[in-house]
């Protein structure tokens, strides 16, 4: 492994650039505040149903608690896709050439890049975790560690996915396109802001979501990532608890290999 110092250099560069990018930091801090404190608190009272005159939560959690793990995923999605998009800048501004004529194999270059994106995303995920007590989410140190593990996998998968997309983009119109075309659709269809089955209590058995929406949610891999985070931080799963970690691993592998294939061709 003579390429460790090279991977380290690429990783370090990603970190330095992220720290110097004020816009990214502002987003990383303001997004969780908006989603958790404003949206979470605001919708909290509506997240419950009435059963025989008795007010109950649809799922045995407050809305604030319910969306908290999803906001972690959201913040990480923004960050990792953003660092992946810097592949486009590197290509346009010529920096990519500096790396391509070096003795580093392309797989190592890509690995360093994605590891850097993962680290920054992990940091932004932790920014959300800091708000846990405001959302009434408490968890054990073991859950902490498990959560970090899941977040690393999620960051890695998302950054790889970002690189796959960036490699296919020829003209770059700015990050807004990505956020509207990739991040938000994935986020909203991942059962992040509402549970998949609205009829969790008897009072609401009459309410069902249309099939297409359920299909979208079930087909979206982020759904299972969010579910895994909920499993760890809230001890609440909508799917089998193994689905999340397994799918995250699979996503890491598939997206990384896809990114590598594109990167080798470039």
């Amino acid at each position, binding site marked *: 492994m003579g*390429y460790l110092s090279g991977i380290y250099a690429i990783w370090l560069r990603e970190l330095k650039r992220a720290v110097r990018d004020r816009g990214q930091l502002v987003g990383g801090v303001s997004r969780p505040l908006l989603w958790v404190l404003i949206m979470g608190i605001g919708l909290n009272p509506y997240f419950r149903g009435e059963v025989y005159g008795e007010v109950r939560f649809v799922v045995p959690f407050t809305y604030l608690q319910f969306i908290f793990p999803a906001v972690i995923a959201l913040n990480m999605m923004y960050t990792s896709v953003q660092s992946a998009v810097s592949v486009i800048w590197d290509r346009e501004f010529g920096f*990519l050439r500096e790396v391509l004529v070096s003795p580093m194999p392309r797989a190592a270059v890509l690995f360093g890049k994605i590891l850097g994106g993962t680290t920054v995303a992990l940091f932004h995920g932790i920014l959300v975790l800091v708000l846990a007590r405001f959302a009434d989410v408490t968890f054990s140190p073991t859950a902490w560690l498990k959560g970090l593990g899941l977040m690393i996998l999620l960051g890695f998968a998302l950054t790889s996915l970002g690189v796959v997309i960036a490699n296919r983009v020829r003209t770059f119109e700015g990050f807004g396109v990505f956020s509207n075309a990739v991040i938000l659709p994935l986020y909203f269809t991942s059962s992040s802001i509402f549970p998949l089955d609205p009829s969790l209590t008897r009072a609401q058995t009459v309410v069902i979501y249309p099939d297409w929406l359920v299909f979208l949610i079930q087909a979206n891999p982020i759904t299972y990532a969010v579910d895994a985070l909920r499993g760890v931080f809230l001890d609440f799963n909508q799917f089998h608890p193994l689905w999340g970690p397994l799918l995250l691993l699979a996503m890491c592998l598939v997206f990384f290999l896809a990114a590598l294939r594109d990167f080798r061709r470039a």
Partner: protein
Amino acid sequence: MQTAPGPIVEIDSVTKRYVRTVALDDISFDVAENELFALLGPNGAGKTTLIEILCTIQRGDKGSVQIAGLDVAKQSREVRKRLGVVFQEPSLDTRLTVAENLDFHGRIYGVPASVRRRRKEELLELVELAGWRDRLVRTLSKGMQRRLEIARALIHDARLLVLDEPTVGLDAQTRSRIWEYLRTLQQEREITVLVTTHYIDEVEDCDRLCIIDQGRVLALDTPQGLKNRYGYHLLRLTPQDEEVRHELRHRFGEALAERGKDLVMAAPEAEALKLIEELGDKLKAFFVERPSLESVFLSLTGYEVRDEVAGARERLLEFGRRGGEHTQ
């Protein structure tokens, strides 16, 4: 390090075609160890394609290239370790500082930390950027960025430094500074420098010069050797009036190029002097230039190309006339 005997670069009948055009047409030449070698040609001559093949970014359709005895296509990783490259387009990370860019390079080339630190200081000193160590690269001028790229290319053990048009878009003073650095590096560190340019006035001091055009090698020799072999005297004539101008144009046709009020043509010495004598009264002024590399280029590539080269030069002169900042 063991030095391989023989040339450091061996290019053997390399051909590269793009969809319609032939970028390199059966090119062969060698570059000797520790030489300052210039590749001169107009834009679109195939210089960049050749450089990219040398740097293992592209592959030729035919032929082979060896660097330090290693095949560029088959042993590209080994070749890259011995190669320092400065591309035509800047390739620095402008959000990192000067020192961080150098460290990054050292790390991806696997240079040990102690060596990296020492080289970094040496090279920053050489390209006169030591005082800028901790500045973000985007705050540096274009010329300073170029100098930094040259320093960066030598952080690792490069035996061959390849530069693709390193002086394009820089002012005259910076251009000549860059050539000074290259000469110093070549002599002090005993490396080979291969540089492409389309500025004729820059290549006067290189060890050997290869002129290429339309993907073919037109000539290869020392600058003096080329002048002796291909050089022409250059005549610059200012006709007395329109009638004379017309007459001259009619008589020499294509061989004569217009430069504002003047007419320019190349001719062997005897013929040039005879012509001046003959025309005598019909001229307001005349000027005879001894063989220069410009005239070598002229006789090798024809007028069309000279036009472009002169164009670049004249733009520069024009810049000076307008009071360009660094003109003396």
